[in-house]
Each structure stands twice: as structure tokens, then as C-alpha cells.
């Protein structure tokens, strides 16, 4: 019996070898990882769509070299376990030469450990936690700013609006807790009173958490986390009579936020968020991208779609450079990663892209945005309160 099974397995393995070799022939795959299902899929799907659009529009140079270029989309469900499991599959597929990936820092950080050990290039369209690049991995680069700047920007902004006290909440992920910590540190430094600092994984019933928050009557509530949780929290805070200002982070940047929270959010002190990726129309290079995106997917690009596009463009360019250096042959993963990092003044639709030695942008953009309409369709018209260009901290 045992012998029989072994024979079958061996036969199968022998049968599969030529298939594997054939598929490897001239195919290059670029993976995307983002939440395609679940509460954060609104953003995750558009990151994938942006990358898909870039692949279609920019794959010509590689095809001329004789390669077949394909997209390999993965769904990380905004969950570290799924992200890591996918990353193992990605690493195991030899045709995948780069990963555009992750919306959540908490998912990117453990998943990229696998990319790092496989020398697989990873360009992040949205991850802002400092640890993403501070590990110094040569494979991991990002095209957005950092939370140790973003949190500071948020704190300085509320301080400039005359806020004296703050209550800080977060979602206990690497991303949410990270940015909340930076906000809290800077707020304290500026002499504001931080009346509370608390994390929660609750998504629906905030009654108990809100009791001390409402009692504190802070001028501003900061929420470090993602819109699908933050908006429900803000809504219930308003229902309990909180009248101050709400401010959140780039995880809040989604039209879903107002469809969850409704018009009450904009009352009182108003609703603000900081972000590292403003609406696509803010970038001069995105006019064509916006019309193409709308033509293909039937809706305006959501935040981070343009970053998804640029991340893919960078990956394609890196692969192209590496392939050229290898004499128009399939390049090694290591060379692709090095080529991505070496790109100089890359012309992305979101601006010129240069990486420093850690993989951060040499200068990143930060925005403070005020939500002005409870209509999700008008999310892209939100008022830009401030735009800043800041280099990463040394």
C-alpha cells in the first residue's frame, strides 16, 4: 500500500516538472496584497485596481523583451495571519518578482519578513508605521510618509486650532497604536493635556469605553485606526453628547467613513483627518489616471488607488532595469529589489519618487483634511486644510 502511494506521488511529481518549467519560461507575475474582502475592502480593492491599471498600461516594455506579465492579487483580509499565509505562497511562486502591498502596517510588518528572507521586492502604497522601513530591509520601500511625522502633524494641527485637552484612542494594531503614541507624545510636548490613552478591538458596542471619554469633556478626540471602527466610535460619541473635535489618521481616509457615521460627525468641533495620500486630484500627474480609472472600474478612485498605481509602476520599472542588466533574461529577485531601490527621480503620477537608504521617500507629503459633506460621493471634495512636505526623521 505504502509503496503504491509512493509510486503515485513520484509519478505525479515527474508529470508536473515539465509544467512548472514551461510556466516559468517567460512569465513574470507581480503580486498585490490588500484587503479585498471585509470591512476595509473598499480601500483594499482600489489599491489592487490601481495596480492592475498600471500593469495594463505600463507592461509594454517588458512584453517587448518577450515576457508575459501578469497580476497575482491576494486578499489579506486586513488580518496578519492571512497576510503571512499569503506571503508564504507568494514567496513559493518563483514567477513572482515583486509585491505591491498591504494597506495595514500590522499586516505588512510580519508578512514582509517573508519577502525579506526571499529577497523579494515589496513596494508599499499605504503603510505608514515607522517599523516598516526602520528594520532597514533592502527589499521594502514605501511611497508614502511615516506615522512619526503624521502623528506629530496631527498634534501640531489641533494645537494650532487652540485645543487644550485631548483624549486618545487606538485600535491596538501596530498602525493605530503607533500613530496614537506619536500623537500623544507631541501633544504632551506642546503642553496639551492628554486625558486618556486607550486601545480597543471592539467594533460595535462602545458604550463602556465612552463613559470616561464623555466625562473627560476633552476638546479633541484622536482615534488611531481605520475608518470602519473609528466612524462607529465617533458616531456613538456624538450620540452620547460629545461636542468637541474629532481627528483621525490616514486610515480614516475613505468615503465609507461618512456613510457609516452620518451627518452628526460634522457637528460641533467638526471632523478632521491627517493623511499621507490626499485625493488623487491633488496630484498634478493624475488627470489621465482618474479618467482611465473611472472608465475601467465605473467609479472615482478611492484614496490610495493612485499610490497602488505608482507602486506597480515602480515594480515594473525595477523589473525592467534588472532584466536589462541580466541581458533581457528573467532577472533574479535580489536584483529586482536592488533596482527598485536605485531608481532616481522616478516620474510617478503622484510626483517624483526617490528612496533613501532605508526605503522611505526622501520627501513625503502630509495633508490635514476637514470633512465638509456627509455625502460619500463628495469625499474627494473635502477641504484641504494644510499640505506639508517633510523629510523623514534621521
Amino acid at each position: 500500500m505504502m509503496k503504491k502511494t509512493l509510486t503515485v506521488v513520484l509519478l505525479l511529481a515527474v508529470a508536473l516538472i515539465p509544467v512548472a518549467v514551461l510556466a516559468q519560461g517567460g512569465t513574470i507575475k507581480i503580486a498585490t496584497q490588500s484587503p479585498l474582502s471585509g470591512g476595509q475592502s473598499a480601500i483594499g480593492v482600489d489599491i489592487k485596481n490601481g495596480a492592475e491599471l498600471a500593469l495594463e498600461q505600463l507592461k509594454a516594455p517588458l512584453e517587448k523583451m518577450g515576457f508575459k506579465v501578469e497580476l497575482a492579487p491576494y486578499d489579506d483580509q486586513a488580518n496578519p495571519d492571512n497576510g503571512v499565509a499569503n506571503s508564504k505562497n507568494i514567496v513559493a511562486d518563483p514567477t513572482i518578482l515583486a509585491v505591491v502591498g498591504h494597506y495595514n502596517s500590522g499586516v505588512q510588518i510580519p508578512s514582509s519578513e517573508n519577502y525579506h528572507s526571499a529577497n523579494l521586492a515589496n513596494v508599499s502604497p499605504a503603510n505608514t508605521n515607522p517599523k516598516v522601513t526602520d528594520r532597514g530591509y533592502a527589499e521594502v520601500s514605501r511611497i508614502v510618509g511615516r506615522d512619526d511625522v503624521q502623528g506629530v502633524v496631527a498634534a501640531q494641527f489641533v494645537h494650532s486650532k487652540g485645543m487644550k485637552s485631548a483624549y486618545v484612542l487606538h485600535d491596538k494594531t501596530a498602525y493605530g497604536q503607533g500613530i496614537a503614541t506619536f500623537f500623544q507624545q507631541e501633544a504632551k510636548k506642546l503642553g496639551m493635556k492628554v486625558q486618556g490613552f486607550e486601545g480597543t478591538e471592539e467594533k460595535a458596542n462602545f458604550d463602556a469605553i465612552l463613559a470616561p471619554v464623555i466625562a473627560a469633556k476633552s476638546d479633541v478626540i484622536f482615534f488611531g485606526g481605520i475608518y470602519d471602527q473609528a466612524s462607529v466610535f465617533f458616531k456613538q460619541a456624538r450620540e452620547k453628547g460629545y461636542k468637541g473635535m474629532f481627528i483621525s489618521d490616514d486610515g480614516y481616509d475613505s468615503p465609507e467613513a461618512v456613510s457609516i457615521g452620518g451627518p452628526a460627525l460634522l457637528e460641533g468641533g467638526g471632523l478632521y483627518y491627517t493623511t499621507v495620500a490626499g485625493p488623487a486630484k491633488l496630484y498634478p500627474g493624475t488627470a489621465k489616471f482618474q479618467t482611465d480609472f473611472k472608465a475601467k472600474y465605473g467609479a472615482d478612485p478611492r484614496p490610495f488607488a493612485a499610490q497602488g498605481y505608482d507602486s506597480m509602476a515602480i515594480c515594473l520599472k525595477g523589473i525592467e532595469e534588472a532584466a536589462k542588466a541580466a541581458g533581457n533574461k528573467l532577472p533574479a529577485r535580489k536584483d529586482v529589489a536592488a533596482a527598485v531601490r536605485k531608481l532616481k527621480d522616478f516620474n510617478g503620477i503622484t510626483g517624483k519618487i526617490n528612496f533613501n537608504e532605508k526605503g522611505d521617500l526622501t520627501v513625503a507629503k502630509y495633508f490635514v483634511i476637514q470633512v465638509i459633506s456627509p455625502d460619500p460621493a463628495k469625499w474627494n471634495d473635502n477641504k484641504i486644510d494644510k499640505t506639508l512636505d517633510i523629510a523623514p526623521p534621521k
Partner: protein
Amino acid sequence: MIAVPIRRFYQNPSIRELIRPLGQIISFSAASSVVLSLLILLVALVLRGTAVNEYALSHYQVDILTLTLKNLPQVLIDGITLGFVYAAIALGYTMVYGVLEFINFAHSEIFAIGAFVGVEVLIAMNNAGVFTGISLWAAYGFLIIAILVGMVAAGGTAVLMEIVAYRPLRGAPRLVPLISAIGVSFFLQDLIRLVESLTTGQFHRIFPTFGNFDKRLLISNFDIAGTTLELNIQFKSIIVIIAAVVMLMLLNYIVNATKIGTAIRAVAQDRASASLMGININLCVVVTFLIGGALGGAAGVLYALKFTRIDPFVGFFPGLKAFTAAVLGGIGNLTGALLGGLVLGLLETFAGSYLYIFTMGAAGAEYKDILAFAILIIVLIFRPSGLLGEQVGQKA
């Protein structure tokens, strides 16, 4: 001599069975609220001389006792609202346990199905523009329709579940239907996920904003220790409480004053003898699942109304806690489920609301379940059959 007609009125069994649970509900809510309030005030008094008081003064500008008092009305209202949601779910667990002696772990998914169907109905109405500029009466009418549809869907699913997954296993060892229940639970959870993600890829749903449910009803303003205390309650909390009370009264009436209720109780006491007396066992079991499921479904819609956001896993924690509430009250005992739900809802809300302040920010609301369940364990050590449970021998 008005007492005589009142007594005669009360002795009418159908009226008595409608009114009696109301008395129980009021006395249970009042008693557990008073006990917990006194406890928390005692803790605040003890903490007055410690660093906690200074923490309150520096972070909230009031001393610890005033802070506790100021939060108290809102905490009580939140706790009782949550308690009624738990009670409505717990009744489903306890009814099935009473009749079949097994824990229907898929009941939390019945709750989720009720929530999703009800919310989908409202979302469809919202998309059709039904809610633009409707009167308050119409808003409440539509809410009631959504609750009823949720009840029908949840009750129907529960009956289907009984016929497909549990009835063939009726004679099997106890562990077998339990495993089947866990399987059904996973199946239903993923079924909701599949159906809900067909359209947009997102499987959470948001309760549409309409009517005056988010508004607050101001009850009164009064001064305590120099600070104005605003006592107000959200309309949706009122709706949840009233709906739950009406359902509990109806349930009590069905179980205690109707023929089918008597039959169900007979089956619960002794299935074989009941069968010999000409009672249709399968019908009784189906009705039990139908009623329990409908209650769970209504609780689901009410939960969505109160907390806005639902996802396919929404049933897990409320279901687990309602099960705990049923055990705390004494599983198999309907009054016990009500008491257990109220106590657990209040305990959880009290723990969550005061833990952060009393520990000076060291342990937040996220630890509320530890405290609530620690108390549960203590209660069960001293009363293993629950607060109202009776010591009964195992059924043959």
C-alpha cells in the same frame, strides 16, 4: 373596595401571565441596578483617600465620588439596554436546553441572521428612497416591519436547522448534537459572509440613519455636588427596552397560558411520558426553536439599531455572553435567563465604564469581560445551578 375586582382581574390566568413578567422585569432591573450602584459608590468612597482621587481631579476636574455619580445614570441605562439584548438571546438558549437538554451553539448565528435580514430590508428601503422626509410614525412602522422580518427569517432558519441538523440526532449521545451545532454555526457564519460579499465584497452592513432613533430624550436636569447632571436617554435605547419587555411578556404568556406552552413544558419535564399523553413531540420542539429563533432574530435587529454596525461574526460575543447569562440565571429556567441577562449586561457595562478611571488608566474597558466573568465564576462556585436554577437530577 376596589381591591376585589383587581384581584379577580389578576386571577384571570391569561392576564396574570401577561402582567407577572412585567413585575419580575421591573424588580430584577431595579434590584440589580441598586446593588451594583451601591457597590460602585462604595468602591468610589474607599478610593477617595487614594491617588485615584487625584487622578480624577487632574484628568476630569472633579473628585472621584462626583465623577462616579455623574456617570452612573448613563451607565445604568446602557447596562440595562445591553442586558435586555442578552436576555432576549439567552431565552433562545435556555428554551432549547429546557426541552432538548443540549446547548444550541448555532443560536448566535440565528441572532446574526435576524440582524442581517432586518438591516438588509432597511437598506433596501433606504436605497429605494422610502426614508426621505417620512413622518415619525412611518419610521417606527418601518422599524417594526424590519424587526418582524428579522424574526421570521431567524425563526425559520432555526426551525430548518432543527429539522436538518438536530432531529436526526435526537437519540444520539449528547456530544453529537453539540458538535453538529458547532458545525451549523460555522456554516451559517460563512453563508452570511458569502451572501453579503456577493455585491460589494464587503460583508459588514450599516444600519441606515432615519427617524429620531439617534436623538436623545431629556428626562431632567439636577445638581449634584455643584455640577449639573443631565439625565437623558437615547430613543433607540428606549426602543430596545420596550421591544424586549413586550417580547418577554408575550413569551411568558405563550409558555404559561396557552395549550402549546403547556405541551412544551410537559415535553421539557419528561419527553417519553408527554409522548404517551398524546403530545406531538416534534411539533413542540419545532415551536421551541421557532420562538427561540424569533426572539434571537429580534434581538439581532435591535442590536444593529443600537450599535449601527454588524458583520457576520457579530453574533459570536453576544451569543457567548447570552449563553453565559443563561447559565448564570440557571439554564433551562426562563426567568433565570432574564435575570442573568440583566445582571451580565449591567456587570459588563459597570466594569467597562469604571475600570479605566479606578485603575488610573492602567486597565481600560477592554478588560471588562475579565471582571464580569470573574464574578460569574464566583457566583457559580457558590450556586452551581445558577442564580435561579433548581437542583435537579439528570434526566434519564
